[in-house]
């Protein structure tokens, strides 16, 4: 049972990481990859809080959930304003981060 759960979490995390690094089409997809990461970790916390019988994990679950919600709100806001500014959210064109 634990192995399956571990594999599930690992696959969710990998999907998130892969989405972050490999998607080159859309900023929205990157945000979604980030959400995947968050929820992979959250799931990790929740499951281990049950199996270790420790309430701390569930507390962290709630905490991270809040932060992730706020963060994705900010990310979507940036996305929307970026779209207004450039009319484009294609990631290959977002290359002004050279400083």
């Amino acid at each position, binding site marked *: 049972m634990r192995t399956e759960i571990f594999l599930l979490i690992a696959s969710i995390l990998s999907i998130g*990481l892969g989405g*972050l*690094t*490999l*998607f*080159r089409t859309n*900023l929205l997809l*990157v945000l979604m990859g980030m959400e995947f990461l968050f929820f992979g970790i959250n799931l990790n916390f929740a499951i281990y809080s049950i199996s270790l019988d420790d309430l701390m994990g569930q507390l962290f679950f709630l905490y991270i959930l809040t932060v992730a919600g706020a963060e994705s709100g900010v990310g979507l806001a940036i996305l929307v304003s970026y779209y207004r500014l450039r009319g484009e959210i294609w*990631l*290959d064109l*977002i*290359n*002004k*981060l*050279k*400083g």
Partner: protein
Amino acid sequence: MILSFLFLTGVTGLMVLGIGRWLGEKGSIFFTLGGVWLTFFWNFFYLFPKALEKKVFLLEGPVWFQANGLEVRWTFCLDSLTILMLVVIVGISSLVHTYSIDYMKGDPHLPRFLAYLSLFTFFMTLLVSSANFLQLFVGWEGVGLCSYLLINFWFTRKQANKSGLKAMVVNRVGDIGLMLAFCLIYWKYKSLDFSVIFLMTPYMEGIPFWFGFTYLEVVAFLLLVGAVGKSAQLGLHMWLPDAMEGPTPVSALIHAATMVTAGVFLVVRCSALFESVPSVLRLVALLGGLTAFFAASTGLFQNDFKKVIAYSTCSQLGYMFLACGLSSYDGAMFHLFTHAFFKALLFLGAGGVIHSFLDEQDLRKMGGLSHYLPFTYTSIFIGSISLMGFPFLAGFYSKEWILEVVASQSFDPFYLFLYGLGVLSAFFTSFYSIRLIYLAFLSLPRSNQVYYRSVHEVPFFMGIPFFLLMICSISVGYLFKDLLIGLGTDFWNYSIHINYTNYRGVEAEFLPYWMKLIPLFFALSGAFVSYLIQSPLSMYFLFWLKEKGYGLVLFLNQKWFFDSIVNYVVRFHLKEGYSSTFKALDRGAFEWFGPTGLSRLVYWFSEKVTMLQSGYLYHYLGGMLFGVVGLIFFSLFSADESFLLVGLMVWVLWISIEER
């Protein structure tokens, strides 16, 4: 106190070199001339009497460097030899400084010129006053540098550049010899101090070395190579006539009176060493005699005003070497002393002529100048007859003495041969001197009216050195003969060492009277013949020249084809050296693994690293991811494995960047 005066010219020279642009013409003249004249007065009125009182100053300075038992100090030894050299050097130098005020008037680089002259004086002071070989070498290289800079003073002229380089390169040959001599000396003596070396020399006799030569023979030969390079003796003389590309005061100071005598000074300074090697002394004498003859014969048909005098310098240096080779070091020093005055006078006079004659140097385009430049004519005339050895002028005493010393050994065919060379050189000397005077001053004018319109007598500051040097050229031989070469004089005070078996003064003094007159006879007949074929018999001479003498005159005019032969021989070796040591090593391997390779590596690497900052979001995210994974590796595995894994990751990242 003593040291401060020794360094004064160096300080003023460096100062004017640094801030001369802001000091301006007057300021730099004030500082350099002040420095050099003060030093001269101090030398003449303080040091020279001390030399007469037979005082020797030995000033021990701080340690320069220390390497495994070799301790080199800044040591200054002021004995009578050094003090005599100092008086000559700084005296001529101060006159030349004064002369340069008017000669270089209006030149925008006057401060630089004066600064170089002062620096040269300083390095020459360092050379003659040092008490060990390495410090001498500092001065030796310093004067070489100043010579290069001053030959090259008008650096926009290609010929000046070439001549400067030639002087530098030919001098390197001699310097290599000198360096090898230092190495060999340190090998056995374990010291570079003169005091140690000259004391220990008798114990070094007979140590076998290469190919049946003894150790001392090799050392003395290598020292001789250095002296030959600096003093422009036969074989390494090519740079001296070419050095005449520099301004004329430079020729007077460096290439006639002082720097070229550094080789003679070295031989005289190392007299204690040379006295132990009779074979090398014979070589010195042979070289000197051949140089005197070669240079005098080459000077016969030169057409450049300054080159005639340059070959004359070369020839007189040959006389000094000849005297050294016969262990008559005092005779060499006496000739050096008198020669400095009349040769400086000749060069300064040549400068006066060239200055007033629109920088024309070709003797064939002059003539009749005695009416326009009586003062310059007088000075060149006095310098020339002093050089010829006209009775009771300066050159007479010194040159006669050298030839008498050689004559005293004429029972030996070798020395008889050298005596013949010396006497013939005296003949040639008079010949070219009178030819110079006749062509420039006495013959009919042969140049454009434009030139004669510009002719003017020398200005005030150029006239003063003429006047003083004329007095010196006339009187200095008579005044100093007994002091410097008189029988049993104790002026030298052990600063030069003559083996009692080699002392030829007595024999020279008691030569038969008619033998003493031989050089004088040849000198006067040379002058007479020269005048004859220039003036009354000139038609016959020209006829002879056209029909029969063409080859001979061409041979002499082209300097015995020495430059061509050396070019032909040396070219291949230079090419080889250029392609192997220079191109393959210096500019090749050392450059590639050294500075250039390193800078290129940094440039290449930084270029690659800047490609990491691409501006794309996913690259940054990938970087973060890899960083996190690397951190996890470090926390999970040992350091070695982690480095391996992280290196692998970096490599993968690298490849992905490369592909872009």
